[in-house]
């Protein structure tokens, strides 16, 4: 079988600076990552609902139909399980599918393909058939979309062995992580956020690949370790900046990928601070935050000076009302309170 494995670039190479004046949107960074990779290899294609003629429901793929044509930028029928399963077959026969879910909330109808086929194909064929596809789209509360459209799937999906899960928090990481995702031989779930697609920051024009399983230290301090991934990293940074005004300096670790999880960086930081707060948009029960706390307790119990604290969304369906949704999600205020609790 013709497995398509694009060479993974040297991930030990130093990354370009985050500082600069090439300011573009998160969505443009995603598009840049896909386009750069697609120009190099004709076997990569993008498929999803509204990705072609409409330029993407969220304009991530704007202009890509024009550049790459309808054979590589493909509007699919409204059939998430269909295109997830099609991606499995296409990947088995040597193509590199990038599948866009308009929302990861809609991926639930494709659960059998995504969880029961994609991650197990390699294992069940005795190492012979991988499914190196990238599945990407919006995850988490998008802003009053109601409970069925506001899923944070990472808590649920991270439980399944065989997939890698990347959750960028900023445009710089969006480009570097998505390029790595496309080069991965394993399936990657790439979780974006509708609330961040318009975020602007410097993104280097050069090509760069951010390794999976390597957290980024976004703020530095020795009072407490703040661990997060995806959109709440930004709330952690806000919280850290405000705490700095009060003389409290904290480490903020952006995990960037939760599968694999850079537990070593977390333990190193906790070794310095003795305290940890994990901020996670998922529901608390059996969440990624729970996993981080468990691993810290298993492997670094003696490092702790205070019990770990989790800041999750509340354990209820995502509310529709604006005020309730704001209350439900992790935010700066909750994070500051959690840090202060650990400082007791």
């Amino acid at each position, binding site marked *: *079988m013709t497995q398509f*494995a694009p060479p993974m670039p040297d991930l030990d190479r130093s990354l370009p600076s985050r500082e600069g004046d090439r300011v573009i949107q998160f969505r443009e960074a995603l598009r840049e990552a896909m386009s750069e990779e697609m120009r190099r290899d004709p*076997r990569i*294609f993008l498929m999803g609902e509204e990705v072609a003629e409409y330029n993407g429901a969220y304009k991530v793929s704007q202009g890509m139909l024009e550049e790459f044509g309808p*054979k590589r930028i493909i509007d*699919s*029928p409204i*059939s998430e*399980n*269909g*295109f*997830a*399963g*099609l*991606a*499995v*077959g*296409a*990947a*088995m*026969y*040597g*193509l590199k*599918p990038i599948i866009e879910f308009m929302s990861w909330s809609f991926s639930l109808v494709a659960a*059998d*393909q995504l969880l*029961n*086929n994609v991650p197990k194909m*390699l*294992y*069940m*064929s*005795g*190492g*012979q*058939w*991988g499914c*190196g596809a990238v599945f990407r789209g919006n995850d988490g509360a998008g802003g009053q979309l109601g409970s069925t459209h506001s899923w944070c799937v990472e808590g649920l999906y991270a439980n399944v*062995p*065989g997939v*890698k899960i990347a959750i960028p928090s900023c445009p710089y990481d969006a480009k570097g992580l998505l390029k790595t995702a496309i080069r*991965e*031989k*394993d399936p990657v779930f790439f979780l974006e956020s509708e609330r961040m697609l318009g975020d602007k920051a410097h993104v280097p024009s050069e090509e760069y690949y951010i390794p999976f*399983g390597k957290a980024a230290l976004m703020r530095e301090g020795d009072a407490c370790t703040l661990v997060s991934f995806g959109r709440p990293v930004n709330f952690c940074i806000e919280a850290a900046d405000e705490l700095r005004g009060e003389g409290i300096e904290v480490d903020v670790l952006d995990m960037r990928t939760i599968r*694999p*999880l850079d*537990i070593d960086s977390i333990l190193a930081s906790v070794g310095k601070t003795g305290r940890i707060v994990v901020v996670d948009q998922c529901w608390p029960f059996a969440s990624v935050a729970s996993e981080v706390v468990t*691993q810290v307790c*298993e*492997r670094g119990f003696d490092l702790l000076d205070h019990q770990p604290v989790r800041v999750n969304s509340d354990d209820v369906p995502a509310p529709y009302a604006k005020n309730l949704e704001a209350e439900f999600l992790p935010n700066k205020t909750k994070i500051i309170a959690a840090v202060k609790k650990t400082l007791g």
Partner: protein
Amino acid sequence: MPVKNVYEARIEHLQILDEEARLDEKLAKWPDGRPVLTDAEVLELYQYMVRCRAVDDLAFKLQRSGRMGTYPQNRGQEAAAVGAGFAAKRGVDYLVPCYRENAALWMHGLPMHYVLLHWMGDERGNQIPDGVCQTPLCIPIGTQMLHATGIAWAFKMRKEARVAITFFGDGATSEGDFHEAMNFASAFQVPCVFFCQNNQWAISVPRESQTASETIAQKAVAYGMPTTQVDGNDLFAVVRASTDAIERARAGGGPSFIEAVTYRLADHTTADDARRYRDAKEVEAWQKRDPLIRLRSYLQARKLWDDAKQAALDDEAKAAATEVVRTAEGIEAPSTDEMFDYTFAAPLPAELELQKRTLQTHSLGQDPAQAGLSAQQA
């Protein structure tokens, strides 16, 4: 304003070798006069069918004596599998199976013991050898049809003159995957053939309770796909319809659907006892339509076969089945490493490396440094 008829459909049923083993000489030839099957081909395919039956018989006994896990017999459906397998080009077209078409897989080069190895509970039975164009057995119902569509999509993208042919049962046509695969295949016009082995029973649910459609074949009409029903116990009909469908797909004509009407003469699997829900008279009636009996009668009538040849083939098939079992049982159990090594593509992620060492050192949790079990044992 008169009511207009905007669509009309017709479902044809193709039979070439009837229950009395009479051949329709006209349909048994292609329009250019070539036979659908030469005598030599019929003889070869008949032997595959008999060998498949012999493996079934032995596998059943093995399961009953505790030497094998659950096993789904192919009994009664051999003509459907062999006919479709024959129509597909070996080494070119891809078979995307479920689990009741063993003979087709073997015809395309899968070593026979792989199937038994799989049912004995060893993933390596699904480690398809290089050059053999098929995907692993697929035990969930219907999921493989979407994979076939994706593989066919890849053929089209890569401009390769290959066809994917996927197998499934009547029960699978109730799954969402079936409809999504059919819709995609047709909307994208990919070279895929959907081959339904309608064996009348989805475990204990009869075909009539599975769907209110009069035929399974008509479901494809809704997807704008050429479709036909064939006598699935008639090797000639299966070969003709499958060849038509496969070559149409290869020529760029898009997907097709085939409903092969057959019957599951055995239980669903060895974990089932069909006597509890099937009428013995129904089974008896279908036993008379056994594709092996029909083909043997045909061969004998043509003086190509006799009792002595049959006895020799039976002996040879039994010996082959015994050898297959011996080979499968002779393979050592997989090592602990394999459990970890195939979860991700190499290199193994650090967290799995840690767990692998944890298991090897009999330690607790996810950390070999804890060495809990070893410490207790010491």
